[in-house]
C-alpha cells in the first residue's frame, strides 16, 4: 500500500532520511523516534508534501511527487497544531470546505458535515467560531474535516502533542474507530504499545520495524544509551 524504495531526503544540504526501504500496510502503523529523527519527513513523503532526493515512494500505486493531486484525494494528513489546519471561521463551514470539490447538493453536503460532527462528538458546536474551541476540540474538528472526505489512508504527525490526557483519549478513540489505514508518529508511547507494526526512526534511518512493545523497548534503550 505504501512503499519506500531506497529513499533519501536531503533538505538544505542536510541529510534528513537515508536508505529508507519499507512497505507499510495494515490498519495501524506507528512511528516513534527522537525530535529531528525524521518521523515527520517520512510522513510528508507519503502525501507529497516533500519529494525524495533519490529513490521513490509509492502510495496506492501512485507516486506522490508525480501524482500529488491524485494521492492527496486518498491520503489525508493530521498535523500536531490544529490551528494551522482550520481554514474557515465556523466549525461546520470548515468541514464543508473539505467537500468543496465534491459534486454534492447542499442537503447532501450538510448531511455529511453533520455525520462527521457526530463522529467526533462536536455536534453542538456546529455554528460555533472555530477559534473559540479548546485545543482538543480544534484537533477533533481537524479530524472531522478529514473524515468527511473518506480518505483511504490517514497520516497523523504527533496529533496529541498539544493535548491533555482527556483530549488525547478522545482523539485516539476517534482514530481507533476509523476503518482505514492510519500511520501515526508520536512521542506518546502508550498510544502505540498494542499496535502490531511500529517503526523506530533514528538519525534518518529506520532502525527497527516490529511490534509496539518491542519498538518501545528499542527506543528506550536508544534514549538511555
Amino acid at each position, binding site marked *: 500500500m505504501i512503499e519506500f524504495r531506497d529513499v533519501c531526503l536531503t533538505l538544505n544540504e542536510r541529510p534528513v532520511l537515508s536508505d529508507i526501504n519499507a512497505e507499510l500496510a495494515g490498519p495501524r502503523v506507528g512511528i516513534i523516534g527522537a525530535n529531528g529523527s525524521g518521523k515527520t519527513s517520512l510522513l510528508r513523503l507519503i502525501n507529497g508534501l516533500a519529494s525524495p532526493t533519490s529513490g521513490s515512494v509509492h502510495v496506492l500505486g501512485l507516486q506522490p511527487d508525480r501524482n500529488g493531486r491524485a494521492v492527496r484525494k486518498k491520503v489525508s494528513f493530521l498535523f500536531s497544531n490544529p490551528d494551522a*489546519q482550520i481554514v474557515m471561521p465556523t466549525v461546520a463551514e470548515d468541514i464543508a470546505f473539505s467537500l468543496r470539490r465534491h459534486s454534492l447538493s447542499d442537503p447532501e453536503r450538510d448531511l455529511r458535515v453533520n455525520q462527521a460532527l457526530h463522529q467526533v462528538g462536536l455536534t453542538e458546536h456546529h455554528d460555533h467560531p472555530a477559534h473559540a474551541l479548546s485545543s482538543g476540540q480544534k484537533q477533533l474538528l481537524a479530524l472531522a474535516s478529514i473524515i468527511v472526505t473518506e480518505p483511504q489512508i490517514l497520516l497523523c504527525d504527533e496529533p496529541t502533542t498539544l493535548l491533555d490526557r482527556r483530549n488525547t483519549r478522545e482523539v485516539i478513540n476517534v482514530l481507533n474507530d476509523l476503518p482505514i489505514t492510519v500511520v501515526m508518529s508520536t512521542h506518546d508511547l502508550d498510544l502505540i504499545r498494542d499496535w502490531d507494526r511500529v517503526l523506530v526512526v533514528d538519525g534518518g534511518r529506520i532502525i527497527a520495524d516490529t511490534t509496539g512493545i518491542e519498538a518501545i523497548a528499542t527506543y528506550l534503550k536508544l534514549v538511555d544509551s
Partner: protein
Amino acid sequence: MIGIYYPGTSWLHRAPPGLKLVMLLLFTTTIVIFRSLPVLAGAALLIFIAYTLARIPMGLALTQLRPLRWIVLLLMAFQWWLLGWERAIEIVGTLVLAVAAAALITLTTTTTAMLATLERMLTPARFIGVDIEKVALVLTLTIRVVPVIADIVGSVRDARRARGLERNARAFVTPVVIRTVGYSHDLGDALIARGVGD
C-alpha cells in the same frame, strides 16, 4: 468585527447574500447622498428594526461598533470644530450606521454563503485570468487569521512581560513576525494537504 456569524432562522438569515449586499449598497448610498438628521434618524430606526427582527442580542450589536469608538470621538470633535455640531453628527452618524448595516450582513450570513456569492459576482474576472477560487480563499483566510494573530500577539506580550521586557519593541516585533511566518508556513502545508491548489 467581521466573520462572527450569529446562527438564526430569521428572514434576514434566510435571504440570499447577493440580495443583502444590494440592500447594503442601497442603504449606504441613500444615507450618503441624502445626508440629513431626519434621514439618519429614519435609517437608525430601520437598522434597529432589522437587528430586532434578526434576533441579534443588543450587546452583540453594540460590540460590532466598539472598534469604531476612538475614530468616532476624534472625527466628531474634528468635524464639530470645523463644520459645527449638526454636520458632525451627520458625518459620524453616517459612518456608524454604515458599519452597523455591514455588521448585520456578516452576523446573518455564513462565510461560505458570502464567498459563494462573491465567487459568482467575480466570475467575469475569470476571462482576464483571475483565479476566482484563490481570491475567495484569500478573503476567507484573511478573516480566519485575525483571531490566530491576536493569540500570537497576546502570548508574545505575556512572554515579554514575564521576562521584564515590557518596553522593548524588538522583544515584541521579532517573535510576532517569526511566529506569524511559522504559522503561515504550517497553514500552507495544511492547505496543500487539504487539496488546495491541486
